[in-house]
């Protein structure tokens, strides 16, 4: 009897799911038919490119339809909101890590769990948040910034989006515990509690993300170089478009080695012949990895420099101080960032000559960084009046954080200093200054600027946004300062415990982490509550100043 009841329950549940699925399919297919008819009446043979040409000149708002259309702005919105989702997930992991360090001996998280959460935090933050928001803003803003003539690579971009998302999910599912470097032989071994048994899944996930990144780079580079409107010359293209171009070139140039290395590592799971511990090839993996590993930390920074250049003039009321030096600085960053990967390996025994080369190359990074920072300062210096809106506050905080993060970076590229601070929280502090101040902060600034457009003209709550800014800025400052000072005294990073001597630094960092966490909750609440209000402003924004000329000249794959 009970069996029949269970069967009955199952069949009812299945039928309900079927009905819902059928309804969704009905909506989808009837709209597709309508679209196809409409396209035909406009002489298009391909409904998708008709849709893209129609949407190209319009603003796009965030709603579920972004998952159905493949125009650049829809793709951009998908990336923006998905990466924001991953920011919250990875941020929760980060705060979990932080609060688990309340006492010197591992208590809240077991060492294994700590390693897993650490790996997840770093991998998701870099590939899903930083890369994702970079790509999302590029897709969303570029069509307007360079007034694209055609937008016909949408299916590729959509494919890239889905495998990027699936790759991120695979990484979480793998519960990998190797930190984001995936160094063999650690990546090939398991821990005794079984973490790391599915590392191969993370490798597949990463490869999928890499394929997605390559597709995106090619689409975006093509968009900038070939699909620009004739009226936008390279010489006066917006600095943001330049920065995205540099970023994408950087990604294409540097991702190859690590894709190959990960492929070989994947093979090693089944037949360990490449990166075996008995050979020196383990060091080879680190070299292949960091050849990409250094550029990946610049990829989420360069476009945000470009965004600062784009947003700052609105709040200062004048032009960017020097256009050409801005572009030159960002371009120089591209070149130099390909030459410094060895500074991640200064203590791995490559030898003094190598260390000195990479140390010197790293010092050179000061030049483009200083060009950029002084350009910002000069722009603000010559401004008639600076409006301290939330985005502008994020920008100023980002510049300050970049200066601190940059100085700590220069210090640690000295071979001698590096020997002391490598593997300590100093390094963690250094890059959290930049990742939280520049990448995350400027992304938030852009999000606030675009919020009225995303939400069809709703204003965000200024007061809550101010709190979000203050808590994020102050919290990350406290956390990173505690880390750098503690690290300089020798507090080792990436361990689920510490010597009691470091208690004050850890406690301060926990305080900072909690403050950041509260700030992000306010941010989330602000998004939800402001979106519920009625539209109260128009949907234009400063990052898409004028919409492209009417698309009489539209040429697309379908026409």
């Amino acid at each position: 009897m009970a069996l029949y009841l269970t069967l009955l329950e199952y069949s009812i549940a299945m039928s309900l799911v079927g009905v819902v699925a059928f309804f969704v399919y009905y909506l989808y297919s009837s709209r597709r038919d309508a679209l196809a008819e409409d396209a035909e009446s406009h002489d298009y043979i391909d409904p998708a490119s008709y849709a893209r040409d129609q949407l190209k000149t319009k603003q796009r708002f965030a709603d579920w339809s972004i998952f159905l259309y493949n125009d650049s702005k829809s793709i951009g919105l998908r990336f923006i909101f998905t990466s924001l989702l991953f920011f919250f997930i990875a941020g929760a992991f980060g705060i979990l890590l932080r609060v688990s360090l309340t006492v010197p001996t591992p208590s809240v998280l077991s060492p294994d769990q700590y390693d897993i959460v650490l790996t997840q935090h770093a991998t998701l933050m870099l590939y899903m948040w930083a890369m994702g928001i970079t790509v999302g803003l590029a897709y969303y803003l570029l069509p307007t910034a360079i007034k694209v003539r055609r937008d016909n690579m949408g299916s590729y971009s959509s494919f890239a989006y889905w495998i990027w998302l699936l790759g991120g999910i695979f990484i979480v599912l793998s519960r990998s515990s190797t930190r984001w470097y995936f160094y063999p032989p650690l990546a090939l071994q398991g821990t005794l509690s079984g973490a790391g048994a599915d590392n191969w899944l993370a490798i597949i996930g990463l490869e999928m993300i890499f394929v997605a990144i390559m597709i995106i780079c090619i689409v975006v580079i093509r968009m900038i170089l070939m699909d620009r409107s004739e009226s936008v010359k390279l010489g006066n293209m917006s600095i943001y478009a330049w920065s995205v171009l540099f970023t994408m070139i950087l990604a294409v140039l540097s991702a190859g080695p690590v894709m190959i290395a990960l492929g070989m590592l994947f093979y090693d799971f089944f037949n360990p012949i490449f990166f075996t511990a008995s050979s020196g090839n383990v060091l080879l993996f680190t070299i292949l990895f960091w050849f990409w590993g250094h550029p990946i930390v610049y990829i989420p920074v360069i476009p945000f420099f470009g965004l600062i250049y784009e947003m700052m003039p609105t709040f200062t009321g004048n032009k960017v101080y020097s256009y050409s030096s801005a572009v030159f600085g960002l371009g120089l960053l591209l070149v130099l960032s390909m030459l410094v990967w060895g500074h991640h390996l200064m203590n791995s025994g490559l030898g003094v000559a190598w260390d000195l080369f990479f140390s010197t190359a790293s010092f050179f990074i000061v030049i483009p960084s200083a060009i950029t920072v002084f350009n910002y300062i000069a722009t603000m210096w010559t401004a008639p009046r600076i409006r301290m809106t939330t985005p502008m506050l994020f920008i100023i905080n980002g510049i300050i954080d970049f200066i601190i993060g940059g100085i700590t970076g220069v210090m640690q590229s000295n071979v001698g200093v590096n020997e002391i601070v490598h593997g300590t929280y100093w390094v963690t502090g250094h890059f959290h200054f930049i990742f939280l101040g520049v990448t995350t902060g400027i992304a938030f600034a852009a999000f606030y600027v675009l919020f009225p457009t995303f939400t069809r003209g709703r204003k965000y709550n200024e007061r809550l946004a101010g709190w979000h800014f203050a808590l994020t800025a102050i919290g990350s400052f406290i956390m990173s300062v505690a880390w750098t000072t503690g690290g300089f005294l020798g507090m080792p990073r990436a361990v689920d415990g510490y010597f009691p001597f470091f208690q004050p630094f850890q406690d301060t960092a926990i305080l900072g982490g909690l403050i950041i966490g509260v700030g992000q909750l306010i941010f989330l609440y602000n998004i939800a509550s402001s979106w519920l209000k009625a539209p109260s402003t128009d949907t234009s924004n400063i990052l898409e100043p004028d919409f492209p000329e009417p698309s009489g000249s539209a040429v697309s794959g379908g026409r």
Partner: protein
Amino acid sequence: MNGSKGGVAFAVIVVLSIAVAVGFVISPQPTSVLSQVIPPNPAYTNSTTLYANAAGWDTPTQYGNTNAAIPVNPTLNYTAGTVVTFTVIETDSLPHNLYIAKGTSENLAAYYSVIGAINPIPGSKYTGEWYAQTPGVYTYWCQVHPTTMVGTINVLPANSTSISNNVVKSTELAPVGVHSPAIQLSISHAVNIQDGFSAISHNSLVLNNCPCFADGPGINWIPIEQIATGIRI
């Protein structure tokens, strides 16, 4: 409505995803049978060399030995908790691989691929690691020649009082070198056989007695020291 629930929907998705992701990631992991979870600091390590030959697996002793009294496909014995590094050397220009499954017969549904396909050029050498974790009887075989190249592995409980290592339990694996068996019997655990000579860890007294020292200390000391400090070679 005008899409005003978008933010709420996003916030709900965020909260749910955080709960699911955090819960999933820190939940205890099921240990999968088939994944090669090699512990970083195994209790014991062992190196075993096998010559791949379509007629049957050979040990260094058997290889090239036409004496029919010496059987092929040696029975291998390991203490539970040993990470075994298998070295397979190609001899007959035919493709081979090395699979291990739990039980007395080959099991294609659940096996470890210790060494995948090897390059069929005589002399080429492949290594693969296998973790002898749970006591029991295992079968090792070559998937290309499953009826001829098949043998048994015994994984013995770690606390068994008998001296449980290859040299003692399976005479077939006695090394070619100059070590006297009497000396090897006195070893407590972890005898490592590598390319025909045995390296002995944890017991330098035994080493001093070993006549292999006559070969010149420099040659034998290096691998022995590495094993003693836990580095696998």
